[in-house]
């Protein structure tokens, strides 16, 4: 008997939908403005932002849904990736800033700094910036995770500590002498890799690239979760101490997925900043991390397509609400948290699963998808 529903195929579908949807929007936006199918610029910007958020949601789900670590600080990795990209975009401004200084970004001239801090070296090169958008969140996640998992901090303690982490970073980035633009952050970007950021063509390409990145994250994560490592992850989530007595080190397993998740979040942040056009310390705010968690909760944790759906739905709702009934948005978001946890603990994906025939529970790595047909 074949299983009626192969759990991870949802990720493939999500990847296909994201890629085709994103590219379609991008292409349609290039149609002449009078055309009935023309997609306006603001919609392209919004779609790009949502997809970047969806990347963050996948990152959160990887650690929460699959490893049982409720992170309340993933926006930190997202923002770090964003800052790395923002630094490159700042350098790309060159002499077109308000002060026209060829060596220093505007805010440094404003603070009367006379030379570029060492950690800004190299950011005039896009590949270096992209590498840092991965390395910076990865390194932070590595240090933090190594410390936290080694000492077996878990559950709500870990959640609170992750929140403290992003809070501390927020305070740090607010400081002018950190050299990241303080309160105002990095903004006023002109172009990326020589292409004008305000050209419809550039924006369409960026949207398509973001969709591609998300699709890639989905497929890579699906491969990882489908491997023996994925099975170990579920094992650690469900019975951590048991894995220890078999001889595994859960801290290594968690650390690996934690760092991987941070890398993905960093990618999301990079794509976010390039399309939104600003990054400031507010992105580190603890509330942002928790909001990312609710996207995952709404969409359905423990599946890869759920978070993507959740991020799109919640953010679409947020855009509509804040446009039409701004004072009601926080009520709506708050109720969404409450109602989801009370009545929809498995999210939309859970509804979908409940509608399907029984027998196909949860994630199923390696063995199930390896088609053993021995069930009587």
């Amino acid at each position, binding site marked *: 008997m074949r299983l009626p529903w192969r759990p991870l195929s949802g990720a493939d579908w999500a990847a296909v939908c994201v890629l085709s949807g994103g590219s379609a929007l991008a292409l349609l936006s290039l149609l002449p403005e009078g055309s009935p199918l023309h997609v306006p610029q603001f919609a392209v910007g919004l779609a790009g932002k949502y997809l970047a958020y969806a990347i963050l949601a996948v990152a959160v789900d990887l650690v929460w849904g699959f490893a049982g670590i409720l992170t309340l600080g993933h926006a930190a990795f997202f923002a770090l990736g964003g800052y790395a990209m923002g630094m490159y975009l700042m350098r790309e401004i060159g002499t077109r800033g308000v002060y026209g200084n060829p060596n220093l970004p505007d805010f440094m001239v404003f603070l009367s700094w006379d030379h570029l801090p060492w950690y800004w070296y190299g950011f005039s090169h896009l590949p270096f910036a992209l590498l840092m958008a991965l390395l910076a969140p990865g390194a932070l996640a590595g240090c933090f995770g190594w410390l936290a998992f080694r000492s077996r901090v878990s559950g709500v303690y870990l959640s609170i500590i992750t929140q403290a982490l992003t809070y501390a970073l927020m305070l740090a980035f607010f400081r002018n002498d950190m050299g990241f633009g303080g309160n105002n952050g990095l903004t006023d970007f002109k172009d990326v890799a020589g292409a004008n950021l305000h050209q419809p063509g550039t924006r369409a390409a960026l949207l398509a690239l973001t969709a591609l990145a998300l699709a890639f994250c989905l497929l890579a994560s699906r491969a*990882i979760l489908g*491997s*023996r*490592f994925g*099975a*170990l992850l*579920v*094992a650690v*989530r*469900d*019975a951590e*101490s*048991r*894995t*220890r*007595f*078999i*001889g*595994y*080190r859960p801290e*290594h*397993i968690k*650390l*690996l997925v934690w760092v991987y998740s941070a890398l993905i979040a960093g990618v999301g942040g990079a794509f976010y900043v390039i399309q939104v056009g600003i990054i400031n310390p507010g992105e580190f705010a603890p509330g942002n991390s928790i909001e990312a968690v609710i996207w995952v909760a709404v969409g359905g944790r423990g599946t890869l397509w759920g978070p993507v759906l959740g991020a799109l739905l919640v953010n679409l709702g947020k855009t509509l609400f804040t446009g039409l009934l701004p004072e009601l948005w926080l009520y709506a978001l708050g109720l969404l948290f409450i109602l989801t946890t009370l009545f929809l603990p498995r999210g939309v994906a859970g509804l979908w699963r409940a509608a399907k025939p029984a027998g196909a*529970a*949860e*994630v*199923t*790595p*390696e*063995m*199930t998808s*390896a088609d*053993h047909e*021995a*069930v*009587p």
Partner: protein
Amino acid sequence: MTAPIGTPATPSSLLYLDAVSVTFDGFRALNKLSLVLAHGEMRAIIGPNGAGKTTMMDVITGKTRPDTGEVAFRGVDLTRMDEPAIARLGIGRKFQKPTVFEHLTVRTNLLLSLKGGRQAFAALFARLTSDEAGRIEAILARTRLAPHANRMAGALSHGQKQWLEIGMLLGQDPELLLVDEPVAGMTDAETMQTADLLRDINRTHSVVVVEHDMAFVRALGVRVTVLHEGSVLAEGSVEQVSANPRVVEVYLGR
């Protein structure tokens, strides 16, 4: 970490506990407990609630650090090692409450337990080898779980979970198996099957079984250690210890 200790452990002793004490908030869970297990031996540990049976298992597997005393396995000091290190050294443990990975299939449960690589990163690229598949099939057959191989472990009955856990121990192939109340919640028939299975396992492994069920212990037919208030009260065959008046007093109350 693995420095041998110069203790009078006999060459034939596999597990060696000497004067081990553990205190929780003033409560003495183990009180100068000493125990020696020979290579290839199967030992049954009995004792009333709170006698320190589970704490003893915790100390051996590294979950609890003893306040004082020596714990050695093949001459290697266990008191400074953590759980994964001890498990890799060759000590497997089955818990009182069956803990299997409920959201994985029976087959995947067994796969994860198989002796071999334990590196997280390597698991990313691990492929199912024919050797592994063969070992899994063998364990499935031995634990009578073959019909359920592709079911989620969480969907198994209580007895089946106990057997899966024993199967995982087999997959781990440790030199020493610590088995905590393996027949709790089993039917009589299942209990006797389990006793057979353990005797079978004992042909190639050393085993420590903690159990309340005297019929089961009798069926095992091995040397019995009686724990009481954290130390050894009596040791000998089932007949010897059940004739011991102190044991009777402890079990039946004063």
